[in-house]
């Protein structure tokens, strides 16, 4: 037997209690990590945005289009390497609840995103088909689509049913990049729009700049060029554009944090209470240990070791479970939140909370044990 035997024996004293405490801690830490990861992933969308891409939208907002005629002038601007453009199509597949993003894009736009990985054959087939579409691999899986299949989208902005033929599948070249969109030729959109008198415009432009240090200056030049036109522009780096999008969720981050704090508080309360309770029940035994010559330090180490085991197991369960679910199995909540990944910072936070719980639950009984007068405790027993 060693001191570890004693710790193990104590943990096994109330098996149900130990198991429930570990499970409770695990669940709470899992919840904390999940919420924080969700929040962190939401925030990190800004980081995904490139500094060498400028997004040019109508100054009034993203729902207002820009004239297609702007393209040539933007292309001619100093420091601009290439210009791509895209439009939100807003098509519905069978039912509004099947929502996914679908855009019309020009070839330059696709070329600007190395993250959109398409095989050369697929790309070629897509370019050759007027109504062709490239579909994210997760979207393909979601609806069980096959390459070559024709899918019909019902227009919300552009009335009527519109057919697209899947010519290619793309996957993300980087973790966290969306794999649930459908891209098709902007030319095809123009055909559709022409029939409805809505042609000649694009949703937004993306400019690739040669030197990221010049991005701010170019953005300013673009905005100045169109300042007094019928459609003034707003040019910003993709990163800033993404961040402003996230900002639209308002204080959802604050609420998730508040919930996370409530969770931490609740588990702190419940677990610390349970562990303190376990130690309290053994005051007489602690008195015996002290009679045998164990010092306060020895007793503290035993109590801490017990708390560390419980918290450690809870952490392994909660944090490990979350890492397994999101980082290894790529769970995306049914397409609701793709690209979730537990970051080292969030993991560290979970460790910190674990440490806090272990300290809190060990400190109180350890302090009481140290203050405990053996003679009183033993008299109480006998």
């Amino acid at each position, binding site marked *: 037997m060693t001191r570890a035997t004693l710790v193990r024996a104590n943990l096994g004293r*109330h098996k*149900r*209690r130990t198991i*429930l*405490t570990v*499970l*409770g*801690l695990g*669940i*709470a830490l*899992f*919840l904390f990590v999940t*919420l924080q990861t969700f929040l962190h992933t939401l925030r990190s969308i800004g980081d995904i945005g490139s500094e060498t891409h400028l997004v040019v939208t109508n*100054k*009034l*907002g*993203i*729902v*207002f289009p820009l004239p297609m005629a702007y393209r040539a002038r933007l292309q001619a601007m100093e420091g601009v390497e290439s210009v791509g453009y895209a439009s939100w199509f*807003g098509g*519905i597949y069978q039912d*509004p609840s099947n*929502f996914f993003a679908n855009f019309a894009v020009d070839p330059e736009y696709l070329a600007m995103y190395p993250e959109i990985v398409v095989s050369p054959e697929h790309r070629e087939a897509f370019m050759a088909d007027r109504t062709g579409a490239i579909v994210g691999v997760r979207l393909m899986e979601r609806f069980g689509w096959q390459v070559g299949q024709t899918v019909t989208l*019902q*227009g*919300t*902005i552009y*009335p*009527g049913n519109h057919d697209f033929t899947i010519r290619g599948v793309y996957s993300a070249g980087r973790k966290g990049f969306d794999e649930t969109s459908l891209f098709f030729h902007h030319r095809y959109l123009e055909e559709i729009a022409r029939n409805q008198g809505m042609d000649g415009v694009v949703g937004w432009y993306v400019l690739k700049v040669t030197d990221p240090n010049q991005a701010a200056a170019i953005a300013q030049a673009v905005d100045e060029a169109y300042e*007094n036109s*019928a459609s*003034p522009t*707003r040019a910003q780096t993709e990163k800033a554009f993404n961040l*402003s999008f996230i*900002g*639209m*969720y*308002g*204080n*959802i981050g604050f*609420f998730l944090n*508040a*919930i996370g704090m*409530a*969770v931490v*508080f*609740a*588990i702190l*309360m*419940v*677990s*610390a*209470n*349970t562990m303190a*309770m376990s130690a309290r*029940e053994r005051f007489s035994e602690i008195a015996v240990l002290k009679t045998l010559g164990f010092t306060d330090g020895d007793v503290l180490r035993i109590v801490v070791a017990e708390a560390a085991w419980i918290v450690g197991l809870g952490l392994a369960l909660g944090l490990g479970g979350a890492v397994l679910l999101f980082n290894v199995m790529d769970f995306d909540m049914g397409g*609701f939140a793709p690209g979730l990944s537990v970051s080292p910072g969030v993991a560290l936070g979970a460790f910190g909370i674990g440490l806090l719980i272990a300290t809190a639950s060990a400190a109180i009984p350890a302090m009481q044990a140290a203050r405990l007068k053996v003679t009183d405790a033993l008299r109480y027993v006998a």
Partner: protein
Amino acid sequence: MKIPLIYNIRSVLHRPTTSLATALGIAFVVLTFVGMLALANGFRSAMISTGRPDNVMLLRQGADSEISSGISREHASIVRSLPEVAKLSDGRPIASADAYVVVAKPRLDGSETHMPVRGVSPEVFELRDEVRIIEGRSFEPGRAEVIVGRGLVGRMADVEIGATIRFGQQDFTVVGHFEADGSVFESEVWGDAETLMAAFRGPVFQSVTVRLADPEAFDALVARIEADPRLQLQAKREPDFFAGQAQFLGTMLEFIAFFVTIVMSIGAVFGAINTMDAMVAARAREISVLQTLGFQRRSVMASFLAEAVVIALAGGALGCLLALPINGIQTSTVNWQSFGEVTFAFRVSPKILLQGMIFAGIMGLVGGFLPARRAAKQGLAAGMRRG
């Protein structure tokens, strides 16, 4: 024979720290539960309380929101003149052809959002009679003036009376603030449709809303519109349309609320089991005495279950109490279904509080079951042996 509840209440009070910690754990779960449901409820009730059932809203066929819709001037006037539409005494239809856009504007906290701007017809105050000016005056048709819903006041920049908002190449002056029974209209900026259309998209409306002369005439109106080959429009009762716009975000908020609280409650139940187990163990002798006195196992079990429920309900009540101050706190987000900013408040309703208490009671029952059974099964000798 039943063991009186007062025995359990005394027992709970006899171990204040342990009981309190357990109750607090449950209180936090209930607090989260009530808080999150209040958020979802506030959002839904803002959307659902929008509009009158005898108002019918028309959008272009296939459009899933006002933003994606478009109705020409010509079609708008056809709709206005339909016989099912109620008329004012001077013969003008009670109807409004709305030009609806969302404009990128900063919130006061610096983040950007889509401020909804609605250009309306002069008859709109008859049509949507819940809208009342609370400060300043209404806009005058033909002038670059707007009024601002009170939900935006204090949350967006440049919406005080006298302030200037720039839309495209034109400046608009804020001349009044309005309220609308807590509906989504309170998150909008209103102005004259003709003036605003000129500043935005040109001569196209996004929706036309009409008052039914006869509230029962909805189907007749729909039939007439479908029969008219010129009109490619879909009709919905006004409240149905706005409730539909709340579907996604409302469901998501409720989903998060239930997911988080159910997971949390499992942890809290585990905590409750532990506490009750400890209480049973500490009272082994008492239980033996109760049994010796002739109380049956079932009574002992019921008694301990009651005790767990007492603790849980106390925690639930505390959680509800802690949740009360969040009632009325305003927040806002972009509702991606309508594309526009929606301001809404946490709404703690009696129903939610009741749900919170029921939830606490269930946690108590579930958490108390195993320990209570353990107490009931405990033999007489077990309690007497160690004392």
